[in-house]
């Protein structure tokens, strides 16, 4: 049988002999290979002349407002928004570029802010979910998300909407299938996808 990953079989209860010889060898060999590295996790101390103390001067325009900042170059745009600027609407879902919850517009394009170093974007214009509405008036896509149940828990929603605004602007919202393809960089664990597609279709049609 093909045996992708470790699920060695499905019979129940499983007699010992049903574990393949290969699996047993693999277990034994594996434990040996790991035993030689107890107490790992040690990492070299930071390089001498700690560059961590060097701060980077950066000017960003966030939701139309100019911000002069001194940043640790390590700081992601996401952490800058959330922790320094207290713009907590942008969410950290995975911090690995694998979920889309942190999507913002960077110079008009959708990006994942978790993999964006803020210090690399001096002079950039950033739009977050907080900057989308015009005063009290929601952006049409925001209204459409409410109207079409494009959300449940709401956590992925800011990223979905920022991604959606860009998706429509890119011209990638011409059909439900196209929306599905071009919105697949935003995971919704509640499964509000049908509502998201409906909201996008309406906003794209109206826009």
């Amino acid at each position, binding site marked *: 049988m*093909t045996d*992708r990953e470790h699920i060695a079989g499905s019979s129940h209860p499983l007699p010992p002999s049903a*574990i393949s010889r290969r699996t047993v060898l693999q277990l034994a060999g594996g434990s040996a290979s790991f035993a030689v590295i107890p107490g790992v996790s040690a990492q070299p101390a930071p390089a001498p002349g700690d560059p961590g103390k060097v701060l980077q001067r950066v000017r960003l325009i966030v939701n139309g407002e100019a911000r002069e900042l001194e940043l640790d170059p390590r700081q992601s745009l996401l952490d800058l928004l959330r922790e320094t600027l207290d713009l907590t609407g942008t*969410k950290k879902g995975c911090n690995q570029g694998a979920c889309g919850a942190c999507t913002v517009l960077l110079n008009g394009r959708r990006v994942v802010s978790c993999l964006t170093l803020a210090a690399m974007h001096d002079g950039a214009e950033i739009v977050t979910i907080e900057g989308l*509405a015009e005063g009290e008036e*929601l952006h049409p896509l925001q209204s459409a998300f409410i109207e079409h149940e494009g959300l449940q828990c*709401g956590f992925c929603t800011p990223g979905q909407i920022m991604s959606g605004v860009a998706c429509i602007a890119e011209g990638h919202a011409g059909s439900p299938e196209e929306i599905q393809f071009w919105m697949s960089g935003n995971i919704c664990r509640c499964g509000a996808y049908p509502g998201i597609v409906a909201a996008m279709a309406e906003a794209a049609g109206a826009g």
Partner: protein
Amino acid sequence: MTTGVIGKPLPRVDGRAKVSGSARYAADFNQPGQVYAVIVSATVGLGRVTDIDSTAIEVMPGIIAVITHRNAPRLAYDEHKSYIDPAVGERLHVLQDDRVRFYGQPVAIVVADTLDRAERAAAALNIAYEAERPIVDPLERNVEPIVPEAATREGSWVHADSSRGDPDGALASAPAKLDEAYDIARENHNPMEPHATVAAWAGDRLTLWSKSQFVVNEQAEIAAIFGIPVANVQVICPFIGGAFGTSLRTWPHVTLAAMAARQVGRAVKLVLTRKQMFFTTGHRPRTLQRVALGAAPDGKLVSLIHEGSGETSRYEEFIEALTNASGYMYSCPNVRTEYRLRPLDIGTPNHMRGPGEASGIFALECAMDELAYALAIDPVELRRRNEPAIDEAENKPFSSRSLMKCYDVGSDRFGWANRTYEPRSMRDGRLLIGMGVASASYPAYQAPASARVRLRADGSAEVEVAASDMGPGTYTSMTQVAAEMLGLTLEQVHFRLGRSDYPPAPSHGGSWTMASVGSAIRAACLAVKTEAARRAVVDERSPVFGVAHEEVEWVDGRARRRGDAAPGPSYGELVTIAGAPIEAEASSGRDPEIAKRYSMHAFGAVFAEVAVDPDVGTIRVRRAVGAYGIGRVVNPRLARSQCTGGMIGGIGMALMERTVLDPRDGRPVNAHMADYLVPVNLDIPMLEAHFVEEVDPHVNPLGVKGLGEIALVGMAPAIANAVFHATGKRVRTLPIRIEDVLSV
């Protein structure tokens, strides 16, 4: 009750907050002077911490504290267990000793002034271990199943063993029989919001802005752990970014955040990394099951044997209702169920959407499909022939059961009649098309809950419950209940939840929030109306002055004598006269007599169509229809959304989700959102959820059964059965993957 707002498909009352970024989740509650804590997770799967050298990181810029088992305060860890915690065993006592019980267990926390600095120092902390090889695979030879002690106790909702008739004898002599094994992978909840706690002490009082599906229990648990009065702890959680069960319990990071905050004397924010979400915050246990069915040639079941085991940790016995449904789903005179645990060197599992039933009914419903094919009977027809009149396990009637109606509606909407019976008989061009069906069920629970209603001078009402809303729409549906009960508009009702100082609610899970909290709000609304009526009848200017308060009724928010057309004072006017808000608190719970008399469950029928690429083995769900009998639907718009969301969770369970542990050290190898696959937008087909008309006068005063769990339950078996229909291949492991159908 005049407004008829219950049952209306209203949009979410919290929609605006959620689409504008102003809804605040735990990690969004930045506090003045806040610092950052990062957990260091064990890099061995079993053993002991032998040395920790923090000298190198203590001198790094911005480092405020390094806390390990060596310098951590000894915490009280007073006894505390809620029903959400395993009844047998003891929770992890974090940083209280040198033992490592599973890979990823917290072994230290680092606190720094910035997150980047805390993360760097945490990664650089030098820890030495004495490692042993953990056992993390329930199929390893020396893993002995144990009888879950709690499931042998009188009144337990899970039964280690149950039996009626002579199932083994009947199986042996059955004209048709099958006996198959099923293996469902460990899954992690992976809500989009990682667990997070912001902790701040003021003297001996602690405030936790913390992701929780059960704020009053988190409050009580943390008070017990720190040995302080419950009233000294406040837990705040107005929004939950999905949870699916992972935030039912109070996991070690909450303790660590509070510990760190106390140690450094500042507010501390602690957010788990996505990788850490695979370590200490529970998971759907891997299950191994056996289902044997015996039947007469006409398909009538003569024997049903369902044995199953779930993994648990070495320190707690996590149980779930894996085999329960096999007792009541079908009519069968000879039934035996057996439920066991396999303790492993892993963190304790916990409830994940549709806990127990999702896994157990997968096995049962796949077996039923196999039986249908063994007997050449249509799978829907087989269910019809085995429809019971009563719950034969409990020997009592169902409070309501609409499974056959669900099959009617589902078959019709899905177009089951267009399906050809033979496997591999349907194609769309190159693609193999399969259609599968499965029953779903989940108990209609209700737990004690309390609510407070406060009428204000402006005519509005404030409603408060320590409940939660992880996405189903608690804010909206409870606003509807209160508006209906008080005769107010939605805008006049201000419903608040997610604070531990509100009247207590049960855990937000098990599909019982609507039944429990809704019933409490109903009771509190009745109580506040009584209180308002008492005020009205003693006010000389009121048309109801002198009337017995029981004679007062409320129409559109105004008091009047029963049968009298003359409108009396409104809530607001009474509050103005009283000079203070009129308030009432009330509790509700299920009448134990009702529970004795009736078996109470929601039922559903789920239909799925898949397309399998015969060349490269890709499996895509093309459409699915679920029909459910869930009693009264408070808000069809939200219910449909929640339901299709659950079906999507079922697609994940069927085709994608599994957490893979390295047998050498127990590490989850795919602890990453790119490697633990959940459905993306492009995976989602046309989904339909239908609610059949079902009036249940017994289940609770609102007549609701709950929806969150059952929505996931039937999907995976319907898909697995559709894969069989498409390919002719039975796959009895989840998830079903490309290579499982490659050689067909």
